[in-house]
């Protein structure tokens, strides 16, 4: 039975939510604290609002291209060359973030529990999961998201909840942190934290209800924004600036402090399960998008043969940085500075040009008909 892959809205929203929120369990709360001090949560809140507005603009422009993905849009805007260039841009973006995140997960897990295991072995284990995920395809990945995301969200909220006794609202003061200028300046760059939103525009052709892509995006942005803000908000209440900039893994640090009675004093090890699940879901989705974009960019017939070459590429790239610090540098100094332009501004330009060309074409047709 030859059936085209279709996924539900909830499944798509879960993928988006995971792609946007996974960074919480990495270094996200710390890096934003470094950028905006006590007002980090405010900066992320502003970013969420800006992204929401940008998404509304995209949704408006995207209406005419509902059953197309971003590559089709770029083809409408700039022809076949446009599609190939756009595809390559997004390919680089996804490959970059995937290898960086892969290395971060591997390094973090090495520090937490597998201290004597070489990082390459840890990366290999993650790569195995990624490969199977990408091989079985979007349908399987999206359904697994539906199972896992509610559990992971519950686990995350539990961590925040069990830390309630440590929260002190006065630690949020001064409310503007490092100042409005810092919030605005860094806030602009930190729009990159929502760069995975672009995945939605590759997902739309797979949606059962294609027209409800806007709803999927809005829910995705709302809940990821909520989780991002909540994580920073709670973290800042638990660890005031500048202490908040010192912890290697903020959410893990919060989990470490949980004590339930005399017996359950070290629940953070269970955190590894959530950690790894998040990583597998994020990385396998990313690998799927990488192979999908490559296939679409060059109009290839098959996607699955691309999985092994790309996993080898990502595995190799993830071993290039010397250590975790250089990985984080690569992310902060390259990816975060440029990715917001590529993923939030560039699609708007593409959509605007494609809409204009479509309208122009229509007018020409109408004029031609009238002339006839």
């Amino acid at each position, binding site marked *: *039975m030859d059936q085209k892959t279709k996924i*539900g809205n*909830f*499944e798509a929203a879960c993928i988006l939510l995971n792609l946007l929120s996974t960074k919480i369990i990495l270094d996200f709360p710390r890096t934003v604290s470094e950028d905006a001090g006590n007002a980090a949560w405010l900066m992320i809140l502003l970013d969420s609002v800006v992204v929401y507005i940008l998404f509304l603009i995209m949704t408006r422009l995207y209406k005419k291209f509902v059953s197309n993905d971003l590559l089709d849009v770029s083809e409408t805007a700039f022809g076949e060359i446009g599609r190939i260039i756009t595809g390559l841009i997004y390919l680089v973006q996804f490959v970059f973030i995937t290898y960086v995140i892969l290395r971060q997960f591997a390094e973090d*897990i090495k520090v937490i*529990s*597998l201290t004597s*295991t070489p990082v390459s*072995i*840890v990366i290999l*284990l*993650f790569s*195995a*999961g990624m490969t*199977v*995920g990408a*091989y*079985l*395809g979007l*349908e*399987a*990945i999206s*359904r*697994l998201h*539906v*199972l896992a995301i509610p559990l992971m969200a519950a686990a995350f909220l539990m961590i925040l909840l069990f830390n309630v006794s440590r929260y002190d609202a006065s630690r949020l003061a001064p409310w503007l942190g490092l100042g409005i200028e810092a919030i605005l300046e860094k806030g602009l760059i930190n729009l990159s934290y929502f760069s995975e939103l672009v995945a939605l525009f590759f997902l739309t052709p797979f949606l059962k209800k294609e027209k409800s892509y806007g709803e999927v995006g809005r829910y995705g942005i709302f809940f990821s924004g909520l989780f991002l803000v909540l994580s920073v908000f709670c973290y800042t209440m638990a660890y005031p600036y500048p202490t908040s900039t010192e912890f290697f893994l903020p959410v893990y640090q919060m989990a470490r402090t949980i004590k339930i009675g*005399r*017996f*359950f*004093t*070290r629940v*953070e*090890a*269970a955190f*590894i*399960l959530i950690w*790894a*699940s998040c990583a*597998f*879901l994020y990385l396998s989705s990313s690998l799927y998008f990488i192979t999908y974009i490559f296939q679409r960019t060059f109009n290839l017939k098959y996607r*699955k*043969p691309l999985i*092994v*070459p790309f996993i080898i590429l990502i595995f190799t790239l993830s071993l290039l940085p010397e250590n975790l610090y250089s990985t984080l540098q690569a992310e902060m100094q390259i990816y975060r500075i440029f990715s917001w332009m590529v993923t939030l501004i560039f699609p708007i330009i593409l959509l605007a040009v494609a809409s204009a060309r479509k309208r122009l074409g229509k007018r020409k047709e109408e004029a031609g008909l009238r002339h006839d």
Partner: protein
Amino acid sequence: MKGIASYLKSILLFKPEEPKNPFVLDDFSNQNDKNTGDKNTDVSLMDDDTEKDERDAESKKNERRKKIIKPVSVKSDMEREDENEGKEDREETENGKEEKISSSLSICLEVIKKRYSADINADFKIREFKVRVKDKVYKAFVCFFDGLVESSIINNNILLPLMTLSVMPMDTEDQSVRDVIFEHLIPQNQITECKSYQEVVDEINFGGIGIFIDSLDVAFAADVKGWEHRNVEQPTSELNIRGPRESFIEISRANSALLRKILKDENLIVEDVLVGERSKTPCSIVYIKNIANARLVDEVRKRLKSIKIAYLRDSGELEQFLEDSTFLPAPQMLLTERPDRVAAYLGEGRVAIIVHGSPHVIVVPITFFNLIHSPEDYYLRYPYSTLLRFIRIMGILITLFLPAVYLAITNYHQEMLPTDLLLAIASSREKVPFPTIVSIIIMEVAFELIREAGIRIPGPIGPTLSIVGGLILGQAAVSANLVSPFLIVIVAVTGIGSFAVPDFSLGYSFRALRFIYILLAGFSGLLGISLGIFIHFLFLINAKSFGVPFLAPIAPKTTGKRTNTIFRAPLWKEEDRPDFINPKNVKQQPFISRKWVKSEKGVRVDGSEDENR
């Protein structure tokens, strides 16, 4: 799996692998070319003598080659043989099917004797006699397999009327001989008129009797089955306290009757399909016509009819021919020996397959959650059965993960344990010379051995096994410092957990996967277990049972109200059939099924809103 293997091959090998044909010998001329080519490259290295010898040898070879007229491949030979055999078979079958019954009794007798090798087949019986019809005597014979038939039926309902009643006066003057015999002289409820030998043979092979009368170009086949079989007994593998205690037996019609007895529905269809080229095993597709999805029934019919095997002995074999994925670590069909369970599933719109000779009936399509349900869940009150389901799920989790988690914690994540517990485990392991993974594998293998031996062991020596098993898995192993007492507890609890899995086949799957999880935990602790869970779930999510996603209605989430998965709703709330099966009629009971209540769910029985809710 095969796809993955070939894909990996295509990636890892630089040159795509050429399709291999193990029966084809390489062409001689090509072989020679290759050899010659090789020799040309090496010729400069050879000395003159060697060159001369080589040349001689080659000339001899060439002569020999000339003698061979044409290279013959093994494949072509075998194929030809197969083709010839197939052709003969086909001709035989076609002849058998097409060969019409002769009106001469002697020819019929000869054909039947030849077909059944009657001279050496001891249990094949032929009884010759005479029939008087319309004052004329006709020669006749009946044939059957001794042991497959009920002798008293043959005597009283076939032979007695034909041999004695035929002399009684009957108003049959305007009727033909065939009609007289069919309508008056064979008082048997199931009788078929056969025009070819094959039809009679099929009936005889399945406990029928063939009746041949001289001058008639038809034969009669009567159903006189009477073979030995088990009576309907209590189920052996699906025991329960509450609910019916009947189980299926090896007789297909008895099984369909057990279902009819429960359902009492004229829309219950029992459709027969013969599977097995030689065994011609009768299989029945059972479904309720106005509930089951027609496409599902078509799919089951299509798959059953497409199976080409020689012999089908049991539903377990049929399951392997019907399942969507061979390598999935979970069964994709439900095999049950309980008629009440099958009846409940038929009522939901599923399809059952009865295989003659098997006491297990196949139910399709199923989901993972059906496999962790027990029929007793529905006979017990709602709160109890919900609790039981939780306990069962706990059992599954323990079976799959407990040894692996123990290994991961003791090897990689010691910080996870509270200090007192950590010290207790450490002191218990102090004298054990093996690493934890070795101890676990020793104990798990010992446990599996005992379990397997327990099934195979003859009854009278069963207690010996339990004594030996108790020693191995008990104090002796601890005293010998092979394992720690803590590990004994882990293995024992794991074993008990595995017995809580209600489906036999799923239990096997968990037993096998437990070892994979242990290896993964030994390799990389909780990260390995997470990898295992991720891949395991991906495969389960990706699986389908006759087109229905294996983890429905949770992944993918279907829109139906009824989610009888982990929790069980009170029976009066289960208004809908599972929507992921797409039954013809989703509603199974009205919104208010307990009409005696004044109002339910905020609505009065008369349909108005209940203001006092």
